[in-house]
């Protein structure tokens, strides 16, 4: 009941989605759109789970006075106050909260730049990695390094100034050897993904239902 019924439901739903998606006749009934919307609404109702889980994680840090617990307090305060602002700022059960000037101000001045800045740290790490890790240890590594340098030079105007054919060479590498190599990798990835999906479909993989 607790395990078998959900697995049975998953199989029936998977069969339904598969048949309806591949059958054009079924498509025309408009049923798939209806069930898409219902299933989407079901997922949307559960959207608070992420916020609650994050809160539980950080509440645990605070309770146990783990190192840096004070930042957990800040995280929880920011999370719930920003949520309250967006959901209640325009009045309960009235939409448009995410368009409030204060809400947008915080979005533009804090959320976006922190996100950008965190990712831009990678520029520094790649410079350091280029110096420390990108070594001609083997022939394969040398081939990789040479190609990387050609691609780098083909990507920037200075490469063109050094040798006018760098962009053409870079494009050729991307279009032929690179595309073929990537396709070979992706064909393998597809076979793996499809096999994993099939395992889910056949009920051989049940970890998603939890312990």
């Amino acid at each position, binding site marked *: 009941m607790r395990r078998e019924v959900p697995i049975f439901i998953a199989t029936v739903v998977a069969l339904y989605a598969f048949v309806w998606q591949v059958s054009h006749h079924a498509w025309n009934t*408009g049923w*798939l*759109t209806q069930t*898409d*919307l219902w*299933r*989407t*609404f079901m*997922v*949307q109702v559960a*959207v608070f789970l992420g916020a609650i889980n994050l809160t539980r994680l950080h509440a645990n840090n605070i309770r146990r006075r783990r190192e840096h617990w004070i930042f957990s307090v800040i995280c929880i305060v920011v999370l719930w106050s920003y949520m309250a602002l967006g959901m209640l700022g325009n009045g309960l059960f009235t*939409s*448009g909260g*995410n*368009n409030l000037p204060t809400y*947008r101000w915080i*979005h*533009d001045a804090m*959320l*976006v*730049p*922190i*996100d*950008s800045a*965190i*990712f*831009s740290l990678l*520029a*520094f790490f*790649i*410079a*350091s990695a*280029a*110096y*420390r890790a*990108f*070594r*001609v240890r083997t022939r394969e590594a040398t081939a990789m*390094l040479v190609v*990387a*340098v050609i691609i*780098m*030079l083909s*990507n*920037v*105007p*200075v*490469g*063109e*100034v050094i040798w006018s054919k760098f*962009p053409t060479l870079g*494009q050729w590498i*991307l*279009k032929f050897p*690179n*595309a073929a190599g*990537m*396709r070979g990798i*992706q064909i393998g990835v597809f076979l793996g993904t499809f096999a994993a999906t099939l395992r889910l479909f056949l009920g051989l993989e049940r970890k998603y239902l939890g312990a």
Partner: protein
Amino acid sequence: MSIWERFDRIDARWIYLFMALALILPVLRPIGMPMSVNPQLTQPFYDWIEKELPPNSLVIMDAAYSGGSAAECDPQMAANFRHLMKKGHKVVLIAQWELGARLSKNVVDAVAREVGAVYGRDYVVAGWRAGGTPWMRSLQDDFWAGMTGVDIDGTSLGEFPLMQRLKAIKPDQVAGIIIYSAGSPGISTYTQFFPEFPLYVGNVAVQVPGNMPLLQARQVLGMLSGLRGAAEYEKLIGEPGRATKLMDAQSVAHMLIIILIVLGNIGYIVKNRQKSA
């Protein structure tokens, strides 16, 4: 201790500082080195909007990125949107990433102010909805229902004249799709569920090599490769913007990284020789 050994043990923070300082000057004083346009990635993208799209076409744009990749995707979207508006086309913007929804609205609103495009008549930002691919799939049958009948600000879609033209993402209503992609969910949503549409991609540079097979098989018809792609597009539409101004700094940064690779390897080879001697 030899000079190479000293180099090898250098604190990474010196490299960080050196890189940051080296980039300040070219950001502030770009000299504008000449730059060619990629004939297989950028040019077909431009030609599609410039020559192939029928007048007054409706194009779907998808912001599948976040602030982390905004430095690459924002200028691409701004350049494409400017071009589309100038040619009199219409745009409906959706977002497969929640952090891309409002971010992309800021980008197109800023361009719209400059070119005089009107919200609701020339473009609409519908935004992001939780739900993954089933949500996206529902848009091909009923865009309004999939979007719960409102735009990102909660305004009813019925209030926008443009939305009378878009009831579903179907070929008779939508001329093509442009996705700005920084990862997953992203391009595969369209190659799997919307294969009948001309698909163009604004890519973060990291993804371009992996997406070349899609371009080869014509599942994707044109791509912009990171900031360079945006700069090339700005050049094509004759409106050099932020991306163009950063290309000299890109050159300096790339040369710096190549020098670091060379220095690191000289040190490595010298050390190996010393060891074996």
